[in-house]
């Protein structure tokens, strides 16, 4: 089965829970365990929070979440048109933060998703591409 959905929200913290719930509900079409769905929720929460705080610096903007199921794999893209990241490699280091935060968001995404890629351009925005496969299907392969 193939399936696609897209959620576009205002960049305000009220919508983080909405993003988590929507992605988890979409993902539930695959055979993810409850614990995998929780991991996914953390990843989405970190990505959307980053767009709000870092991307748009709490100013108004839109965050777009693209959800897709292809070949039994879940693909999620979280995108903002905010300020962008200067040095992506540095941003991905544990505890690196520009806002006095934990610096763990991108680390959590990386550990909870099977594939994770950051694309970003200063002044244009940031796009996180993530892939997650149910553990069940991994064992079969």
């Amino acid at each position, binding site marked *: 089965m193939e399936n696609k959905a897209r959620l576009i929200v205002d960049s305000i*913290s*009220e919508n*983080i*829970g909405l993003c*988590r719930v929507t992605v988890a509900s979409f993902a539930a079409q695959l055979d993810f365990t409850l*614990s995998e769905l*929780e991991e996914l*929720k*953390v990843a989405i*929460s*970190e990505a959307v*929070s980053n767009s*709000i*705080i870092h991307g748009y610096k709490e100013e108004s903007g839109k965050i777009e979440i693209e959800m897709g199921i292809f070949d039994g794999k879940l693909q999620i893209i979280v995108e903002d048109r905010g300020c962008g990241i200067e040095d992506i490699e540095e941003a991905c280091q544990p505890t690196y933060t520009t806002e006095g*935060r*934990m610096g*763990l*968001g991108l*680390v*959590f995404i990386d*550990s909870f998703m099977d594939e994770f890629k950051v694309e970003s351009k200063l002044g244009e925005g940031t796009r996180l591409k993530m892939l997650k496969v149910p553990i069940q299907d991994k064992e079969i392969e």
Partner: protein
Amino acid sequence: MDLSFKEKEGKLIVSLKGDFDLHTAPGFKEAITKKINPQIRGLILNLDGIKFIDSSGLGAILVSYKKIKGLGGELGLLNVTPQVRRIFELSGMLKIINLYSSEKEALDNIFRG
């Protein structure tokens, strides 16, 4: 997220209920700042009502840890669910914060000075 407070043996016990993220972290930090005072030497966070936590929630707990440490007190976490525990483990915070499985255990072990 809902917060409820009680004091016991000079320690502040806070029960958290709901999702702990960027949206709810500011309210938590504000409430803790208001409730903590130099008389209180122990802060116990009961997390069994936390359905979700991410790095923004962890960050807010770290802030409360620093606040109570600054007053010479200690922080303990109570009733951490497996899901939440995993996030704490990944963050490395378990090296500095103790987990307890009952209120009594927490009260007995936190700031006995």
